[in-house]
């Protein structure tokens, strides 16, 4: 393990701080043994009854505002994951939506998909004992309509025309335009959905535009207990009437009496907290931190117990995205040349020491999508030819990488070719500088004294926009790719930007190449959510913010296929065939060089709790910050019972 964790890849602060400090202490023979586990948490709850979870966005600046409809109010301190529920949630293991507050998936009442009947789950109560009924849904709809001050109001009324009560547990919904996927508009696919049903008996007494919803009345199995006025922790307690909740009906009684969401600040402190058994579940950390953690605390584990440790089923994949309206990236030959100029194996090692699954398609290589698209399309990929008859696909990528990792002494790398492909991906594009050169010359590039010159006569240099201090994989990938392109002969540098500036550049088209991922997210075999964003309808001039298709990619054939997808519901038998055709179109045009699924290092600590989802216990993905976390909590068990 330590052989491929190159210290030079550590962030400077991390390398200088944690490694130095912990490393020296360990070398000097002083074991970093934490004191005996405390029986109580520092917020006064029994430790053995408290599940402690890392807060995704660190400290919350306005902790006593829990009005989820006010933009800027943070809810992923437990409100989003444990206390509210969606009409429809997501089963990430199966890759399909499930009814949450709704009793069944919506039933279309007409062929236009503009009218639906939605039955609601019966027997649910709010945390103050009031029953959950259609009146709450009707009130939420009307509140959004009547309160334009809430930013989501405009977006909501743009698509939902009305909601009508049929009886206490049935509503009928009318949309402003054909909406074959109503459950996506009003339910969670990835992370959650902005439509949250609120209790009428509470909210109708308040002005929703200014109401702080604190302390909140909740609908799911946990209720608010206490919080830190400075927003560093939030404590949730299991409801006595947990059986009157969606979790109670769908899963059963959750074991943790308390769930404490808390912030430990920087990655170093989060790692120390887990090493000291002060936290049970961490959101993203780097592979180096996981390595340190595993060595410090034998109860800490990643998604896999061995290489590659990370969960590889994140619904967004990473790659190099182009502004295809800007020369020379408006030419598919340029984009293909840049793909073939890269040695993907080297990029994988440089980014995350090979702990990634490659993807040649415009959808992430999750388990569900690998079975539905990547594996079935492997034959087509192998036979795929560029205009000149060249076949760019290398089906042996996984086998070669496995061989290389084994030769470096990494253990538990599959020997079998099929197993290797399952782990590292079905293949990727060849590293072929000669073919890349040929394509560039065909696109009008020339070489002058070893320097590539663009068709307009200007020397060719590339700047890749990359995230600074967030989304580490995309950040590292940008440097790995810059190295590849520079070696090929195109001087490439990386410009790191903070989140606000990074996404402003993407939306306004103020970039040429960026290490982005937003338009490469999918989780279900129905690719609508991902592919809709590539429709040419959404192309805007550079300078004008685009809400979708930030690559400004115009492709009539692709848009026609997306139109076909738009018209059918998620369970239509044409979903996968149309999705496959779309993916082929995306390969031919290559508007983005998709590279790897996202590897999430999301460790758990089994000192106090077990039965977390994992590669060998895959009942859910490790998405602690999503709305479906409540279903995971209900399946976690106390370690003491083992």
């Amino acid at each position, binding site marked *: 393990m330590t052989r491929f964790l190159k210290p030079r890849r550590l962030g400077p602060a991390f390398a200088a701080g944690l490694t130095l400090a912990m490393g020296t202490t360990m070398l000097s023979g002083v074991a970093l043994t934490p004191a005996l586990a405390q029986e109580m948490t520092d917020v006064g709850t029994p430790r053995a009854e408290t599940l402690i979870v890392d807060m995704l966005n660190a400290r919350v600046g306005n902790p006593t505002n829990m009005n989820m409809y006010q*933009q800027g109010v943070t809810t992923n301190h437990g409100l989003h994951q444990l206390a509210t529920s969606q009409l429809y949630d997501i089963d990430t293991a199966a890759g399909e939506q499930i009814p949450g507050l709704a009793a069944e998936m919506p039933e279309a009442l007409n062929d236009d998909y503009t009218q639906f009947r939605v039955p609601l789950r019966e027997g649910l109560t709010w945390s103050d004992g009031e029953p959950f009924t259609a009146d709450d849904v009707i009130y939420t709809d009307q509140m959004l309509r009547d309160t334009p001050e809430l930013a989501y109001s405009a*977006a909501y009324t743009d*698509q939902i025309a009305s909601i009508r009560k049929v009886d206490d547990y049935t509503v009928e919904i009318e949309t402003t335009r054909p909406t074959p996927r109503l459950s996506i508009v009003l339910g969670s696919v990835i992370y959650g959905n902005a439509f949250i049903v609120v209790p009428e008996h509470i909210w109708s007494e308040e002005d929703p535009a200014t109401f702080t919803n604190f302390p909140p009345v909740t609908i799911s199995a946990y209720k608010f207990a206490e919080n830190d006025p400075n927003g560093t922790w939030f404590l949730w307690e299991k409801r006595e009437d947990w059986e009157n909740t969606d979790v109670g009906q769908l899963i059963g009684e959750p074991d943790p009496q308390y769930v404490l969401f808390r912030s430990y600040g920087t990655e170093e*402190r989060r790692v*120390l907290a887990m*090493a000291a058994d002060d936290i049970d579940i961490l959101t993203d950390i780097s592979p180096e931190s996981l390595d340190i953690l595993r060595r410090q605390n034998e109860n800490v584990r990643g998604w896999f117990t061995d290489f590659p440790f990370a969960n590889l089923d994140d619904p967004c994949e990473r790659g190099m995205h182009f502004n295809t309206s800007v020369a020379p990236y408006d030419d598919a030959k340029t984009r293909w040349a840049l793909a073939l100029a890269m040695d993907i194996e080297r990029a994988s090692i440089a980014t995350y020491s090979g702990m990634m699954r490659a993807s040649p398609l415009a959808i992430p290589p999750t388990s569900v999508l690998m079975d539905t698209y990547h594996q079935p399309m492997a034959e087509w990929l192998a036979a795929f030819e560029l205009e000149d008859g060249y076949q760019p696909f290398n089906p042996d990528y996984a086998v070669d990488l496995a061989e290389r990792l084994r030769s470096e002494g990494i253990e538990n790398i599959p020997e079998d070719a099929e197993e290797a492909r399952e782990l590292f991906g079905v293949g990727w594009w060849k590293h072929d500088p000669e073919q890349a050169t040929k394509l560039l010359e065909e696109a009008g590039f020339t070489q002058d004294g070893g320097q590539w010159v663009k068709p307009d006569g200007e020397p060719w240099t590339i700047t890749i926009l990359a995230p600074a201090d967030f989304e580490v994989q995309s950040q590292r990938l940008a440097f790995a790719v810059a190295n590849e392109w520079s070696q090929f002969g195109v001087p490439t540098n990386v410009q790191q930007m903070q989140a606000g500036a990074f996404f402003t550049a993407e939306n306004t088209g103020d970039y040429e190449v960026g290490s982005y991922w937003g338009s490469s997210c999918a989780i279900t075999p129905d690719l609508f959510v991902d592919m*809709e964003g590539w429709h040419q309808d959404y192309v805007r001039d550079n300078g004008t*913010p685009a809400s979708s298709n930030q690559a400004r990619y115009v492709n009539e054939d692709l848009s026609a296929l997306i139109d076909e997808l738009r018209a059918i519901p998620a369970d239509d038998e044409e979903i996968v065939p149309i999705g496959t055709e779309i993916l082929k179109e995306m390969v031919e045009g290559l508007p983005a060089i998709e590279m790897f699924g996202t590897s999430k290092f999301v460790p758990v600590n089994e000192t106090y709790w077990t039965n977390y989802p994992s590669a060998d216990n895959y009942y859910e993905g490790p998405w602690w910050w999503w709305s479906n976390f409540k279903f995971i909590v209900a399946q976690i068990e106390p370690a003491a019972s083992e």
Partner: protein
Amino acid sequence: MRLLRYIAGRLVVYLLVIVFGLTILFFVPRLGPTDPVEAMLAKVAAQGAYMDASQVDRLRESLADTFGLNGTLLEQYWAFIKRILLTGDFGPSLSMYPTPVMELILNALPWTFGLLLTSTLIAWVLGNFVGLLAGWRPESNAAKAMEGVAIFLYPIPYYILALVLSILFSYVWQIFPLTTTIRGAPWSWDLISSIVWNSILPAASIVIVVFGWWVISVKAQTSQLKDEEFIRYARLKGLSQTRILTRYVLPNAILPQITFLALQIGLMFNGSLITEILFDYPGLGLLIYTAVLQGDFNLLMGTISLSVIAVATATMVIDLIYPLIDPRIRHR
């Protein structure tokens, strides 16, 4: 009359500095690459919540309107200056909308002030005391040892020092909490002791690093003063060492230290960025950091405006009280 002219001059400069600072503050973030509406949309999109493109368009319009970013730059500027100078209102935070910026600042200010005022004063008193002794009696073993400690600690990068303190005192020995955990009813003893307990480690990290600088600077002053003629004259007069040190050396060596102390106190409105990030301490530094990351114009302008005003005020106060401390200036 001359004194009045002096005070009036200082006041005019004070006001000009503030208006100039606020103007720069208004325009610089707007020249930057971050659009707060796009940043907010990205926050929604990055979490994956699905909205189709036309819904996002509507949300974009709605946010620009809500954030008050729809007028021309000049209109926004006049509104900003009027609002700040007349009402002290920085508007709502854009990243934590609709919480008012002033509310966020007022929540964070006591933390930063409590932490930095205490640690700065402790470091100042300790550092000046040790530096004075080390400069006055360089041959003394105690002075040498204390100076050695200061010189050893001073160059250690703050980040490393704070991390090592955390690892030793919060992980290995588990004496202090790993992160700030405040509990207790308002104004209760539990709350006060919880605040003090949680602040010890961050405060110690600041004292340890800043202490060295005060030692080195006052020692240099003292060493120079020792050879001045008025000190030699005092010795020849037969005054005691203690009297020379306290009545002749100290008042002269301490003057620049007071200036720096005042500026340090003014700069407290910036918070102590790294300390607060590292210890997850809920002060102004953490607030500024959030504002920068999120492209929160209002919060950024609120926190830094306050800092501009505080530094300008501290400088003016020093200008006004300096004649009282230093007779040479009074004479001029």
